[in-house]
């Protein structure tokens, strides 16, 4: 059976495209088009999410992707991912140390007195989740006054540029496994160049999770939190900040700051295990990080990193420990693509399904004459 060529949809398709553009603009005369800076600032978390799920730190294009997709996070990330696939790879950065991050938020759930202190930064953690009705009819003047007033009232020159990591203090106390020097020398797996053929190294899992879809990674991490797993994580440190991106100067090789990326980073400390080889028991660790300010994603990733380490070492005992299950189901572009394709014409395959059903029905009727009429 060959494919049936389908014609006649061309006009309808271009009509649908134009209609979507009408929907985007139908607010009409009273409306202002969204400008990209507005999206980046007033839709800060959405913007962060798109950069992390797209896997490309490009604030301007992330805003554009949000605008053109009418706020559909999957479509916006897809647009960013599609853009990146058209660009040549020019450089690979040296291994950047995230402890040089210019922090705007750092908290710990393990100790109250962490070295350098806890600073909440901008957070909705303490919000009452009540409707702020005063924003219903916010005047531009009031809006503009808020930031100016905040800047005016808040000056703190006595804050250090960078902060020590909580984990380093725990490691010094001998509560954590020593740093695996061999792992530090490993060449990372590049998910943009190589397909995931299992088993994959941990670096492949980290990269895949860093650009995963927030809801998907949360759902699988949540299964572990609820009981399909036994990580019992404690957030050692969650930080948000700007990581300076350093690249070697083409002429001198000296490291040059070429820009900075906003990122979220989380380390969890989890259940300790008795070492099989008789070594000293220590806490196990999980790590999560992604572009932008996305705390739920970073925490989910750190829990799954810990779960996957168990699965890679001892074999999975639940879905969240199975690298193949986790890593092949958390990418938003993959999963939405598969889901969306079901809307495409399947006329031929469905025709064949119907033929087979009818044949089977006929056979059934032959074997059971008169059954349907009974």
């Amino acid at each position, binding site marked *: 059976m060959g494919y049936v060529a389908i014609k006649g949809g061309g006009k309808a398709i271009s009509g649908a495209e134009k209609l979507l553009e009408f929907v985007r603009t139908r607010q009409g005369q009273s409306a202002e088009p969204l400008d990209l800076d507005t999206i980046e600032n007033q839709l800060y978390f959405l913007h962060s999410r798109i950069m992390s799920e797209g896997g490309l730190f490009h604030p301007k294009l992330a805003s554009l992707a949000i605008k053109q997709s009418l706020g559909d996070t999957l479509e916006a990330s897809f647009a960013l991912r599609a853009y990146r696939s058209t660009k*040549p*790879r*020019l*450089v690979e950065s040296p291994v950047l140390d995230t402890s040089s991050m210019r922090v705007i938020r750092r908290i710990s759930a393990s100790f109250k007195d962490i070295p350098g202190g806890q600073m909440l930064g901008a957070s909705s953690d303490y919000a009452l989740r009540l409707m702020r009705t005063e924003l219903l009819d916010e005047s531009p003047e009031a809006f503009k006054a808020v930031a100016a007033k905040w800047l005016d009232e808040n000056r703190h020159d006595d804050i250090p540029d960078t902060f020590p990591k909580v984990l380093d203090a725990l490691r010094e106390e001998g509560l954590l496994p020593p740093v695996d020097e061999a792992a530090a020398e490993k060449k990372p797996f590049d998910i943009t160049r190589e397909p995931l053929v299992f088993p994959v190294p941990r670096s492949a899992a980290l990269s895949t999770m860093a650009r995963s879809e927030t809801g998907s990674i949360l759902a699988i991490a949540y299964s572990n939190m609820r009981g399909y797993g036994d990580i019992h994580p404690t957030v050692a440190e969650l930080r948000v900040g700007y990581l300076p991106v350093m690249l070697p100067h*083409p002429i001198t090789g000296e490291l040059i700051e070429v820009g900075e990326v906003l990122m979220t980073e989380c380390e969890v400390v989890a259940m300790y295990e008795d070492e099989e080889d008789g070594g000293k028991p220590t806490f196990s660790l999980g790590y999560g990080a992604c572009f932008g300010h996305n705390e739920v994603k970073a925490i989910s990733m750190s829990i799954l990193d810990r779960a996957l380490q168990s699965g890679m070492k001892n074999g999975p005992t639940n879905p969240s420990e199975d690298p193949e299950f986790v890593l092949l189901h958390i990418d938003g572009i993959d999963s939405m693509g598969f889901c969306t394709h079901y809307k495409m014409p399947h006329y031929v395959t469905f025709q064949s399904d119907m033929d087979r059903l009818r044949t089977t029905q006929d056979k059934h009727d032959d074997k059971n004459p008169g059954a349907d009429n009974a």
Partner: protein
Amino acid sequence: MLKQDLLGAHVNPIWLADTQQALFNSLMQALSRPGQLENWTKWLENSPVYLAVLATLLDGEVSLADVDGLLKDDHWPLLQAQNVHSEQAHYALCDGAKAISFQPKLGTLSSPDFATTIILKVSKLDTHHGDIRLKLTGPGVNGETQVSVSGIDQAWLEQRNEWCSAFPLGIDCILVDDTQIMGLPRTTKIELIETTQNEDLN
């Protein structure tokens, strides 16, 4: 955003995207129609053809071996390719008049594309006259075609046939003279039907 070339620097056209797209198209033609000569004169502006081929095909993610030292130091940052030993290279640039000095990658059965592409410089490609007359058959050739190559060590052609004897393993070749290119993909069968003046090269 600035979009014009604000420095007013002169750039040889082979490094510009528009040219490279046209040349890539021409390369595809050449590899689709083995034995057909593509003339690149109008694009070159004094650059050797092999440099234009490399400029079109290479970027920072692939490797190149300059087997016979045809490139200048200045070319490398422009080409951006990693400079590697000939046995590991994705691309190898060779002088056809010189003897073969290495074993290229022939790919693997699961990934025959992981083979070396050889850019072979000869002195002259011509449809009628030359040192060695070749008969080409295979995909992309209507029946058979003939072409003459000058300034090539005959051993290259014999060795090339040997390398391509276990399809899909093999190498793809791009022959270049001063102004023209010719594709010899691994699928093409080459027969030497006439050789003259070969002793000069040996």
